[in-house]
Each structure stands twice: as C-alpha cells, then as structure tokens.
C-alpha cells in the first residue's frame, strides 16, 4: 500500500504529475482509498486535486450551473441555486453516505467512479449534464460513462467541471432503495422528471440505478409517456415496460429478481407524485 502522495497547487503541476505512469487522481478519496485498501488498485502515486484554486468554484449562470471538480457534496448542498433549480440533484446527493462522507466526497468523483449505483450520477443522467474535460472538450455524461467503472476520460486528462443546463420541471422524484436509511449503497434507485399540466404529461425523463452496467435512461418509456394522463392505468403500463427493460444481476445486496420487482413497483409512487401537476 506504499505510494507517493502529491498535492499540486496549479492545474499545470497537476498535468505534469499526472503524466507519470501509475498515477491516480484523488479528490475526496472516498472511492479511491477504499479501492486502495482492498488492493483493487495499486497506485504508484496519488495526486490530489484539492489545493488547486481554479478547480474550486460554483457558477450560477442564466442557462446552467457549473460545478468545479473539488466542490464537495456538503458545499453543493449549501449552494442556494442548486436547491432552487435542481431539487432532484439535491435529493439524490442528500442520500450519499453520511455527513462525513458528504464533507469529503464530490460529484466529480461520483461521475468518474462510474458506478451504476452512483446516486449523484443518476441525477446527472436525468438532467442531461455535461462533463468538462481538461483537454477542453465537453461531453454528455451518458457518453462520458462507458461501463461500470469505465469512462471516456483520455489518459493524462482530468475532469474540470460539470455543467447542468437549467430547465423547468413540474415534478421531480428520486428514491434509493438501500438496506438501511443512510450509509447505504442502492439495491435499486430511480429518478424521474415530469413536465405536465392537469396531469397530462408534456415531457418525461426516467432513469434507474444499480440494475444495469451503467445508470439506465429508458428513452422509449419516456417517449411513450408523452401526452399521457398520469393515473393508475398509466403507471401500470409504465411498470410493465420497465420490468421488461431492466436486466439486473444478483449480488450481495439483493437478487436480480428482487431488483426487478423494485423497478416495477417504484413506478407506483407516481400516483401520489403526479398529483403535483
């Protein structure tokens, strides 16, 4: 478990230090250090981003907010425009770990960790967030994440920020089904965003976590929902569609069968939530 730990002060230093083979980036370390402890990764050096001022920022623009790479969950939750414009993201990150974990962990870490169970990640999928990379490119999160633990991040590069476009939604919902109320990794999670009037759907997005190799947006379900009236029949049909489209696996937290039941059942929450429009 021996490695060199470096704390660069500028992005230039960061880039140089990162170019050494066997180097790993660390922000909060709440994913990285767990993997180091169990021997899943064996870094030669660990390069921390946390002292770089140019990565520590929050911007509230007219059409988007921009979250710098070293902004912790706790900082993000204190950022007023977040609750106002993205209550779904707020709800999702509120379920991450514990206060201690949220004081260290970051949304960027959650994205690069690319776990299908990532709670922040699920919200970003729904919000059509974009990832800004140090080479100047900006990539939709769904393209950035390529598989479990895998991303399209070119070697030697790092994530600078996350951009989330603003958009008005009538209803937002996030739910994580874990094994207890906090400090829990999801067995299955779901989120949806609805734009509607008099319970008629104008626009709909839905995503599931922990039931596929990556977070799963169900585009055909989203298409199907357009123009529909939110009632029992509607949720029933959505539930059926979901059940056919998720392909979860068994793991130590729950069986594939249970996960499938959860995915189908969680949709019924819409009956109560739908009344909000």
């Amino acid at each position: 478990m021996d490695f060199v730990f470096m704390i660069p002060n500028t992005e230039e230093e960061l880039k140089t230090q990162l170019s050494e083979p066997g180097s790993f980036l660390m922000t909060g370390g709440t994913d990285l250090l767990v993997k180091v402890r169990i021997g899943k990764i064996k870094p030669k050096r660990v390069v921390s981003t946390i002292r770089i001022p140019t990565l520590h920022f929050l911007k509230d623009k007219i059409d988007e907010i921009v979250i710098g790479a070293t902004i912790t969950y706790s900082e993000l939750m204190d950022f007023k425009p977040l609750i106002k414009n993205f209550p779904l993201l707020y709800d999702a990150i509120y379920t991450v770990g514990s206060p201690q974990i949220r004081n260290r962990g970051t949304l960027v870490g959650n994205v690069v960790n690319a776990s299908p169970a990532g709670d922040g990640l699920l919200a970003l999928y729904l919000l059509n967030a974009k990832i800004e990379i140090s080479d100047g490119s900006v990539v939709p999160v769904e393209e950035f994440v390529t598989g479990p633990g895998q991303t399209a991040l070119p070697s030697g590069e790092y994530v600078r920020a996350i951009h989330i476009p603003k958009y008005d939604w009538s209803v937002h919902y996030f739910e994580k089904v874990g094994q207890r109320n906090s400090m829990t990794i999801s067995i299955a999670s779901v989120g949806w965003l609805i734009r509607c009037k008099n319970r008629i759907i104008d626009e709909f997005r839905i995503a599931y976590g922990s039931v596929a190799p990556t977070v799963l947006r169900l585009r055909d379900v989203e298409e199907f929902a357009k123009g529909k009236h939110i009632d029992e029949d509607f949720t029933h049909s959505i539930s059926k569609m979901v059940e056919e489209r998720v392909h979860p696996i068994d793991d130590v937290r729950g069986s594939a069968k249970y996960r499938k039941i959860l995915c189908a059942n969680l949709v019924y929450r819409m009956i109560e939530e739908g009344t909000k429009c």
Partner: protein
Amino acid sequence: MQGVTEKHGYFIIGKEVQRVDAFQKVTGQAKFVADFDMKDMLYGVLVLSKYARARVKKIDVSKAKILKGVKAVLTYKDIPGENQLGEVVADMPCLVPEGEEVRYHGDVVALVAADTLKIAKSAAKLVEVEYEELTPILTIEEALKNEYKVHPNGNVLTSKRIRKGNIEAGFADSDVILEDDFYAHYQEQAYLEPQGILATFDNNYGITIYGSMQCPYYVQSAVPKVLGIPMNQVRVIQAETGGAFGGKEDVPSYVASQCALLAYHTKKPVLLVYSREVDIQTTSKRHPIKSHYKLGLSRDGKLKAVEITAHMDMGAYATLSPIVMYRSLVHAASAYDIPNVKVDIDGVYTNKVPCGAFRGFGSPQVLFAMESMVSEAAKRLKMDPIDIRMKNALRVGSRTSTDQVLTESVGAVKTIEHAVKISNYDELKRQVIEFNEKNKFKKRGIGVSHIIYGVSLGAAGQHLDAAGALVQVHRDGTINVHFGNTEMGQGAKTVISMIAAEALGQKMDKIRVDNPDTSYVQDSGPTVASRTTVFGGNAVKSACESIKSRMAKHFAKTRKVPIDEITFENGTVKTSNGEEEDFGKLAQECYDANVKMIERGWFVSPKLYWNPETGIGEAYITYAYATQIVLVEVDMLTGRTQVIEGYTSHDVGKKLNPVGLVGQVQGGFVQGMGYGLFEEIKTSSGKILTDNFNTYIIPTISDIPKKLVIDFVEDDYSQGPFGAKGIGEPSLMPTPAAVANAISDAIGRRIKRIPATQEYVMNLIEEVK
C-alpha cells in the same frame, strides 16, 4: 452487616451519575490494545485456510522465513504444549497440522511475526500450503445425514431435552393446535474494536497478556496449555475493550494463544490485531437455529402444551455451543406457565464459521419462534396478543418450563401492564387501523413480545458461578477496587463504583475501579450472562462492608459512641449525637492504629438442583422479565420496514444505575432490531461474503425509531446487590420477536425467518398477490 445501622434510603444507588470512564473514552485518552506500542514490538498475522473443508498435505514456510524483517513463521510443529483449544470441548486445533483437515474458512494454518505489519502480511502470502479439497458440509440437513463427518464422532455433538408433564395428554386436552417452522439466522457481534492482543515476554512473569476481552480467566487457562507452561507464569490484564457482546468471551483465548506463541518464540512483544475481514470471517457468531413448534391451547387461550424440536448450526467447532444450547433449551417455551413441555435441541457441526456466545446466548432465536407462535395463537383465537400473554404469564408460585417454582422477584405481569400503559395501547391500535385504511402502499403493524431471561450461568454453569473482589482503602480515603469482571462498554465500572461508594459511604469520585488482572483476584468466571452487577457487585459490596465495619469500630472506640449509631454517607462519618468525621481523615486514623484496610470479597451462586436427563429443575438463580410493543411501517412496494415506535418495560429487580440501564435497553433494542431486520451473514461455499460493514448491515442512527419509551419494573431480588438483577441481555431479547410480530401484523403474513430482510418481506407480499 454487623454493627452499623442499615439505612433505607441510598445516597448513590438509584441516582443519575456520570459514567466513570466517559471522559477518557470521549477524549480519546483511553488506550485500546491497537494503540499499544512497545520497544522492539513485532506484528502478528494469521495464515488462514482457503477452503471450507480440505486436507492439509504440506505446509512450506521456507520462502516466508527468509523475507527480511520476518522474525517467526510458526506451524503446529512449533507448539510446545497442547495444540488443542476449546472452552467446553477441546475440538479446535490452535494451528492445523499437516495430514489433518481444515474445517472452515477461518482455520489457522500458520502464524507470522515481523518488524512491521506490512512485512508480516507479505510473509503470510509466501506461506505455501498444499490442500486436498474435500466436500464440505454446509447445511444442517446435510450434516444430519452424516455422510461426511466434520469431526470423527459424527455431526451431532450433543442433544438436550426437557420433559415436563405429559405432552400427549396436553395436546389431547387442547382445543386448538398450531404448528410451524422457524429459522433464525447468524448475527455478527459487530463490536467496534476488532479482536486484539499484545503478548509480552519477560523474565519475571513469563508471559503477560494485554487484550480486548470479556474473560481474562479463560485466557489464563488457555495460553499455558498451548505453551506448556504453568499457570503462574501467565498473567492476563484486560485492556480497554471496545464492545464485545459475547464475541470476546472465548475467542480472545484463541487470539491470545496465537499471539503468545509468537512472543514465546521471538522473546519479543507481539501485537496481533485482527482486521475487520479476518475478524468476521473467523470468529464466532450467533447460532442459526431451525425450529419446529407445536402449541396446544384451550379455547380461552390457556397454553396447555408446547412441543419443540430445534437444531443449532454450531459450525466447525463446539466453542461454547453446549452451554449456549442449555440457554436455548430453557428459554424455548418463553415466559409462560405451561403444564406440558417437551423440548429437544441438537447441536450440529458444519464446515462453517463456529458459533458461540452472543448477547442472549441462543435465546433470541427461540424466543422469536415462541413469541411468533403465541401471537399467531392469539390471532387464531381472536384474542388480543396482550391478553393471551397476560393469561399465561408467570407469577410468584408459577412453574417455569423446567418446572422451577418461582418464589420471588417475578415482575412479569407488571411489565405487561406497564407496556400497555406507556404505549397507550388501545389508542395505538386505533391509529394503526385508521392509517391502514388511508394508505395503500404503506401498512402499519403492532408487535408484542413477552420474555423471560435467566440471570447468570444457571445450573449448567454453577462450577464457574462465583466472583471475587479486592478492595483497598488508602490513607487519604481513596479506594482501589479490583474485581474479576470486565468493563467492555456496558458500564460495569460505573455500577461497581456506585456499589462500592454506597457500601463504604465514600464519595464515588474517590473510587477507582481497575481493569481485571488475573494476579489480583481469583477466577471470577466470565463477564457474560448478565451476571456482573449481581456477582461482581455482591463480591465488591461484601469486601467494602468488612472494611467499613472495621472503620466503624475504630470510630466508636475513639469517639466513645455506640457503634450502631454510626452512619457512613457520601464521604462523611456521623453519629446521631452530632459527632462527625471526614471519611479520609478516619482512614488516616485507621492506618495510624494499624487497622486492616484491605479486604477480599467472594460471592458464590446459590446452589441449584438440575436433572439433565429430564431438563427439570432450577435452571437459573432468578429471572428477568420484559414486555415490548413496537409499531412498524412496511413499504409494500419495496418490502422495507421502519420501526417507528418502541415501548419496552423491564423487570430489573432494583435500579442501581438508572442512566446505565437506559443505555443498555437502548443498545439492546437497536441490536435486536438489527437482528430482526437486516443484519445478514451471506456465504458462498462456506466463506462469508459480508465480511465488513459495507455489506454486513447494522443499524445507523437514522434507522432507530423516532420514539423509544423505556420503563422499569422494580421487584427486589433478595440475593442481588440492593435487590438488583441483570439487564445486559434481557434488553435485546424481546425485540426481534416484537419486530417480526409487527411486520406480520402489517402485511398479513407470518414472518418465519429473521432477519426479516426487505427482500424476504417483499417475497411474502408478492405471494399474496
């Protein structure tokens, strides 16, 4: 106590006091064994079996030995004494020999000591073990076939039974008969501090062992056997212990034997601290128990007969299973007056983690089953679950399931009455009906349980049931109390300080309770079975009273006052005529007059009659009782349960330390709730997958109920210090059963397995659809 006036009011007993070890623990000054550091200290690491069952063909340590910084790599060949461990049955090798079988994934094949932990770990990986894989026994059913044997004498180690009354006649006499099967799974103790021992070698004492442990005297018997040295060369001192829950009853004897072997061979101090993963993989758990229950009742709800067969999964070694089984046996029919009782329990070997001691010792599993049956019977008879319990509850003069006549301190009925009152039971029921009418996807339910709990070791453990103390009053009036039982977070030092303060009439802050050291106090038995306050407390009390009466004699003589008019209270010695002295000044005077100011105390269990053939007799010296009512909400879409309210009433004999009591009940409730809901050991080919707190799920602060009302019934026990009985374990016992009954009530299907995980509950809900 002779000479000095017996007071009726107490100045410290029953009062709210600060925990004596709180400050050190909160500020981090308390040192746990992993914090110890000594000159030239080495680090120990285990080499564990890779299979559930395999023959060890060859162990090659040559590569490990030549690694720089490695000081010892030991195998069975290096054991100078007996290579056999086991508190009850010596069936467990300290290090598995070549030619013999490893019997579970945690068996130890070799030990390494090195200058650093990192080197020790690398060396452990270099130990080459050649195995011949064998078919493992992974279930109770496979074990009972006896096709493969975990140990040569067969897979059933022992069987225990109760035969009370006439079971056939009891069922013939019943109007309603119910039968069902239940399963209670493993539970991991999940103490915060993992197992750890520091063994030092020195020329004066031989070996001194410091460690996290409940039972220093077990360690002191085990280590000399393995090292082949006499007992007076091994001294055991308990270090601060960060939780134990039974998991540090006998296990530290094994850890200490491993560590002492390394110290013995290297002649250096060795620190052996288990990682969480090694700890969970190798150390004993609560036993899985499969049971079949048959209950007979009259139409009006009187229990006529109960017939129980149960099998305990002991895992690969017996550890404490035979005595755990004894407790399962006695508690299997719970807290009721039943004329006809038949119980059969078998302890079965499998190639899995050995099971042993855990808060409750084999009883929460059977109490869950019995309490489920009683609630089911109530439902069948259209009775309220409270009424059926009241009808069958034990009272003074009742006979327990082992036909023991209860003569005093039976607060059972009062706990039922109190639980009903504090929960506002009728209103609670009304609210649940109202809630369920309004909600489709969330359903609420109420669960009731009523339990009995035998205090201390009982008839089967009488040979261990004594405890000692050594009390010394110094010339400045401060006091050292040595006793033979341990503080492991439960508050033993605080209650012992209170007892010493009350018995001596000195202020509590003048008293220091020292960690047990086997060279001061005679073997006081284990710190288990909710016995410490009663046994250690009585021993300390009697030593204090002897010293006090000598001080009183001196005071009477020098002040020329009658001895029976002297009182000692809160640091002041007084007579009715206004003569007064400070406790410390009087101590100084006593020293100047050569008065003996040190004393031993020794408390022995009242003797119990017991017939192991019939399971009839006085099973325990006394019993604690409890009644619990819980309110749960089940999410019908996910199967998740939230306990939202809990009401629990406990008969404790006498409240000595009211703050400590509440702490015990809160902790017991939460640990019992975790067992009832989501603590689950998952295995694959006998290997534990849930080997850390990422996957082994224990409750967090956000899982505990918003409302937990705790109540105590005081019904003095004449043999207890100031009338007290135990609370450590009874605090947990009612909860798994109450939670399971509440879920059953909410979903309309009977919970037959704990933990009632969300997945299990979801499956039950789906079955109805």
